[in-house]
């Protein structure tokens, strides 16, 4: 009896797994398209950091849009693991290193770091302490660099 229950559960589990796999396969996008898509989002991140970097350097005092920029970076950061599905290491020109897939946990952790720092950046951008904002912009940039160091080639 016990044995049969387990067997049933196993079959059910297997069925669920297969459905899941089928779903994943169906959802998988063309690597070339995923690469293009994620590059667009990295461009967006870059541009926001560029604008905020000028403020952090003190070369402009203008800080318009920072809350929205930080919010967008935060939203993109949460997507990063999904933007690098297995198989998207080729198909179009990409600087993604194989470590993204071979050291997946580290990669996800690096993306998570950006999520954490950009969340703090939203708070800092809403606040009035300019020095805290500058420091947090730097911290966010360091989160970018921390991931690029291991996972992006030149």
């Amino acid at each position, binding site marked *: 009896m016990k044995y049969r229950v387990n067997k049933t559960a196993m079959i059910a589990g297997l069925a669920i797994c297969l459905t899941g796999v089928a779903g994943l396969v169906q*959802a998988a*996008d*063309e690597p070339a*398209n*995923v690469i*293009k*898509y994620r*590059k*667009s*989002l*990295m*461009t*967006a*991140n*870059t*541009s*926001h950091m*560029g*604008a905020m970097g*000028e*403020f952090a350097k003190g*070369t*402009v005092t*203008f800080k*318009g*849009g920072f*809350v*929205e*920029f930080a*919010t*967008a970076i935060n*939203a*993109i950061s949460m*997507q990063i693991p*999904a*933007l690098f*599905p297995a198989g998207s290491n080729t198909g179009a020109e990409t600087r993604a290193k194989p470590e993204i897939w071979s050291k997946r946990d580290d990669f996800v952790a690096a993306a998570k770091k950006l999520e954490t720092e950009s969340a703090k950046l939203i708070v800092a951008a809403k606040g009035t302490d300019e020095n805290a904002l500058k420091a947090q912009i730097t911290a966010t940039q360091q989160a970018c660099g921390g991931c690029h160091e291991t996972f992006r080639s030149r």
Partner: protein
Amino acid sequence: MRRSLVIGLAIGTVAVAMAGIVAEAFAQARPLDMIRYRQSAMKGNGGYLNALNAYAKGEVTVVTKDTIKAYAAALVGTSLEIPGMFPAGTDTGRTNAKPEIWQKNADFLAAAKRLGEESTKLAEVATAGNEAAMKEQIGKVAQACGGCHQPFRKPLPPAAK
């Protein structure tokens, strides 16, 4: 004779002082950096548009309505800042800004406002989650970008880093 010399000297002194003041003002305003700043913002908009277009064309499915909402919000955010990103005096140097931005400033501001309106609508349809409506609205956002670039941006931008 001597008086004219004194006057000449005085004018010269004032001229030098004024040149100094102008140079000082330039050093503080550093127009290059505002140009760099707004180019960054615009490049970001371009990134979002490329991402949105990829979704609208059905090239990627990793997109969710939440991410579309986030992109739309960022576009709204930038659109609100556009008027402040083009202060007078930032029309020279490494910029593709046309003089029309300042000559027909009301039109320029209206064009910027339109980007905000279309992007706000995009955020709204993304909240509702109708795929066809989202794709339709992405096209309108793209038109809003083009609607401003056509009269106010020089074609073929020089390679900005």
